[in-house]
């Protein structure tokens, strides 16, 4: 049996090199397959209808972690399990190791990749459902319908990006190498995302993320997430912080939040820089986070809870990092 009687079939091609992959990806309707843990459930539910599925899992050059002093280049197909188990990643970029370890369950992490996690689709309780379920409500703006069940008066999709790695990579000032048939470009990790749940990636058609580049760490970092079941679920909110604390006070802080909207939110930290880390500073940060994120009711959990828990996670993480 194939995926689903209603799902059009596709051609599966295994690329041997980045050149071959981007050549195939230039075909309209072609999709990248890395670990498949996000793409295949969506295929099964009829949410994706690719003509060609280009598997990048066999491209040798994408599967490595390379160090130069304390800077690091991580290939797009490095698995989350490997990232979470790498001692040097854990000591240099704790936020990244903690985020990788917090994705799904072990079997998702042994298949799931860095590139796939960064490019995973946005999620919504009205969208990530089987065809019969979506059919019963007439689809939605994102696919097959003309109304958004989350904000029916609006004309845009609020589905939330729920990748755990992105906030960590943004806090750690990572850049991405992006290849296409036309060449290679580099972009800041934060620029990968757009504020549109139905088209949340700033990649052009046919572009492939090939590597993540991390500068040497500037201080300490960490990642915390809240989820319904600690064993497996996507984040209701996930917070990464990169922090440098001087003799007395915070010198630099980058705070990024996932799971609360179509793209990760970078929270302004002017209010806490220059302060010492104490209860008041933590509360200030919590307030700033709560003001910056605007989750919509895209999960069964109320949006107000996600906003509040994002603030609480940030405050706790700040205290932990400075302790």
């Amino acid at each position: 049996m194939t995926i689903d009687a209603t799902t059009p079939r596709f051609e599966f091609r295994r690329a041997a090199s980045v050149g071959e992959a981007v050549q195939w990806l230039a075909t309209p309707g072609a999709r990248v397959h890395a670990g498949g843990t996000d793409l295949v459930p969506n295929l099964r539910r009829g949410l994706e209808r690719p003509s060609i599925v280009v598997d990048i899992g066999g491209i040798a050059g994408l599967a490595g972690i390379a160090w130069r002093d304390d800077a690091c280049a991580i290939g797009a197909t490095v698995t989350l399990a490997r990232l979470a188990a790498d001692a040097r990643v854990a000591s240099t970029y704790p936020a990244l190791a903690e985020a990788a370890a917090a994705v799904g369950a072990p079997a998702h992490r042994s298949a799931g990749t860095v590139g796939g996690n960064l490019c995973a689709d946005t999620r919504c309780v009205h969208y990530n459902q089987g065809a019969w379920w979506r059919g019963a409500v007439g689809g939605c703006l994102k696919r097959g319908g003309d109304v958004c069940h989350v904000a029916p008066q609006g004309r845009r999709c609020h589905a939330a990006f729920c990748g755990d790695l992105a906030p960590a990579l943004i806090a750690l000032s990572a850049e991405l190498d992006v290849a296409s048939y036309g060449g290679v470009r580099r972009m800041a990790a934060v620029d990968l995302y757009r504020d549109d749940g139905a088209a949340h990636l700033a990649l052009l058609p046919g572009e492939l993320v090939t590597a993540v580049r991390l500068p040497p760490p500037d201080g300490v970092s960490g990642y915390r997430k809240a989820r319904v079941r600690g064993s497996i679920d996507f984040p209701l909110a996930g917070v990464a912080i990169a922090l440098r604390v001087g003799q007395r006070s915070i010198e630099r802080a980058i705070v990024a939040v996932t799971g609360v909207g179509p793209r990760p939110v970078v929270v302004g930290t002017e209010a806490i820089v220059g302060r010492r880390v104490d209860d008041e500073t933590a509360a200030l940060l919590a307030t700033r986070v709560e003001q910056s994120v605007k989750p919509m009711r895209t999960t069964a959990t109320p949006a107000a809870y996600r906003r509040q828990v994002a603030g609480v996670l940030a405050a706790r993480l700040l205290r932990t990092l400075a302790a």
Partner: protein
Amino acid sequence: MGTRLLEVTVNGRTRCDAVDDATLLVDYLRRSVGLTGTKQGCDGGECGACTVLVDGAPRLACITLAASMAGRSIETIESLAAAGRMSPLQRAFHEHLGAQCGYCTPGMIMSAEALLRRDRAPTEDAIRAALAGNLCRCTGYVKIVESVQAASRALAEGER
């Protein structure tokens, strides 16, 4: 659209089968190979019933495209018993009531097998972490954790 000849190793034997490009690994194993021990418990990636080992690591067969497995080595629950004798993990699940309806059991055991190969004497936390993606609607998990602990003890005593 596409069909291919897929060469993979299943439970130690290399095979070659014609599969549609969109075939899921769970359907390939159950229908083409005839190994029905691997179960499908959800509509994609949520429950762990379909857990198999791919090159020794746990993978969810229901969200794995068979075509992506070319050249890989797959192990299913059927690989564990040898010459009619259950493996230590299988015996432990049997003797310590780790299985009730049994539907989650093949996935539970394959996840636990991957753990015990890596760590023969895991802590309870390590067992729970390794089984985090395997849902059981019958046992309440306590008996499952005890079964894995019993298998770990049996291995330490040299049982095979």
